[in-house]
């Protein structure tokens, strides 16, 4: 039987006449890394705020660790760590002091937990430097540290890789993966860097204009992302003729730059190459490619390119 950490039931949020979230039914399974994908203003942060209790639903409900209402739901929120929108830090405090304030609030025993958390997020060398002097990347890491301090079972992270340099992104991804695998922490993460989610998430939710369009596992996503063979030759028009005559397929597209996407014979790239060469073409590139998350996402929301 699947154990759910978070479920929303017909969750709706309306600001005036604008519907920010429209009857969303989200399910996050225990141990999952749930990648939450959507354009700016799609409703990702709204849903996260409703789950964390920062905003109140117009209708529908949130179920967290099986608790759906009242003080049980409030107490269930102690089992989660949160970083929503910009990193929420006390600018006049150091990294250690920020963590200490949160440790006292959460009643986490032992001051050593502050030192361990600083090491975990790579901020143990920041000393007396105040959080206001931190780079955005350092602030993101400290916000993650704060979220992790109470040893949460569920981490809710809104765009946690914003402002991180490429190495920082890799480190963040590795850290989240490790926390998920070694500590069993369930993670709900939103990001506009879809390729990042692709490398991290085990489950996905696609939201657009307040509506949760689809939820799927990474395996299901792989199956649905369209595969093709990318071909680059010296004479694309002739290659099209060869593909039609020799391989008996019209399942291909010739792009403006002359590259060809072949959607058939995906398991026979060598045969495709032989046919093209035998047809007198100079083969420059031939490689199997899967449609990435961005393309799939764009097709689901109806053609947009940016999450």
């Amino acid at each position, binding site marked *: 039987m699947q154990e759910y950490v978070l479920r929303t039931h017909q969750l709706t949020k309306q600001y005036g006449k604008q519907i920010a979230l429209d009857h969303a039914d989200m399910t996050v399974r225990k141990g999952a890394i749930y990648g939450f994908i959507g354009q700016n203003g799609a409703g990702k942060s709204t849903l996260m705020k409703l789950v964390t209790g*920062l905003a*109140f639903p117009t209708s529908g409900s949130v179920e967290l660790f099986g608790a759906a209402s009242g003080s049980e739901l*409030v107490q269930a929120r102690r089992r989660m760590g*949160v970083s929503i929108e910009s990193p929420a830090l006390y600018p006049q*405090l150091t990294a250690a002091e920020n963590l*200490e*304030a949160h440790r006292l609030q959460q009643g986490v025993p032992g001051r050593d937990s502050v030192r361990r958390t600083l090491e975990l997020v790579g901020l143990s060398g920041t000393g007396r430097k105040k959080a206001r002097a931190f780079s955005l990347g350092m602030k993101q890491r400290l916000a993650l540290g704060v979220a992790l301090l109470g040893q949460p079972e569920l981490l809710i992270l809104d765009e946690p890789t914003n402002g991180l340099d490429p190495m920082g992104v890799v480190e963040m991804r590795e850290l989240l993966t490790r926390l998920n695998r070694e500590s069993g922490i369930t993670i709900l993460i939103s990001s506009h860097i879809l390729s990042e989610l692709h490398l991290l998430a085990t489950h996905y939710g696609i939201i657009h204009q307040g509506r949760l369009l689809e939820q799927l596992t990474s395996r299901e996503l792989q199956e649905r992302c369209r595969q093709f063979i990318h071909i680059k030759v010296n004479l694309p028009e002739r290659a099209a003729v060869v593909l039609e005559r020799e391989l008996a397929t019209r399942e291909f597209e010739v792009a403006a730059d002359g590259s060809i996407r072949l959607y058939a014979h995906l398991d026979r790239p060598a045969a495709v190459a032989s046919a093209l060469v035998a047809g007198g073409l100079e083969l420059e590139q031939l490689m199997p490619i899967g449609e990435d998350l961005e393309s799939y996402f764009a097709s689901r929301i109806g053609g947009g390119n940016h999450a």
Partner: protein
Amino acid sequence: MLNLLRSESYKLLRNRSLWLLAAVLAASGIAYVLMAYYDESNGGGTLSAVSGLDLLAMAMGGNNYVIKIGLCVLAGFFISSEYSAGTIKRGAASGYGRSRFIAAKLLVFIGGSALVSLIFPAVIFALGSALMGVGELPGGASAADYAWRSLLVTITLSAAFAAVTGAVATALTDSGKTIGALFVFYFFADGLYGMIGKFIPFVETMYRHSIFHLINTYADPAMGSAQLAQSIYVPLLVAAAFVGIGIAVFERKEIR
């Protein structure tokens, strides 16, 4: 609740505006006493006509502004800044009830405010008494009674103003708006009550029992026991009411 109070106290004690305010008040108190000491026609000293009690009475009058202005600034930086920095989200999503979270914040703010409000009169009375003697009150009233009574009423009134300020800061969320709105309100409250009281007698009666009137008379050495009692229970009731209002506002507030 204890965890929340500890966390809020930790943050308040590391709030730069608190220490800056405390340092300015202490320095002002010292400067005030030294100026009074050296400004005497006989060159100062223990023969001075001004005593620690006289200075305390004067300091209480000036402390009126400290309680009003100082606490607005402190609220701006301690409560409203939580919204601008986004840290209020951490608290509201921390798994404590919203009422407990904001109650802890307001209680710590009130406690800190009361201590800050004591600095100016306490420094002046202590230093003034050391340099010029404690002095005597007219009619042979007890100097010790006046001193503790003054400090007690300072605490209750500053608690009341802090609670009002804290509730407004919770509602307005923006430090600039909080400081600005309360500055205007506190400075015009007396005139406003007076003006409306001319037309509506009940408002005049209400004003006479309000913290705005009490703070104008709280330094009176001739204060009777009835007025003393009123200067204690009215501010405490106001503080309790506005902590309740602050909680009610925060319970219903969407945090963006």
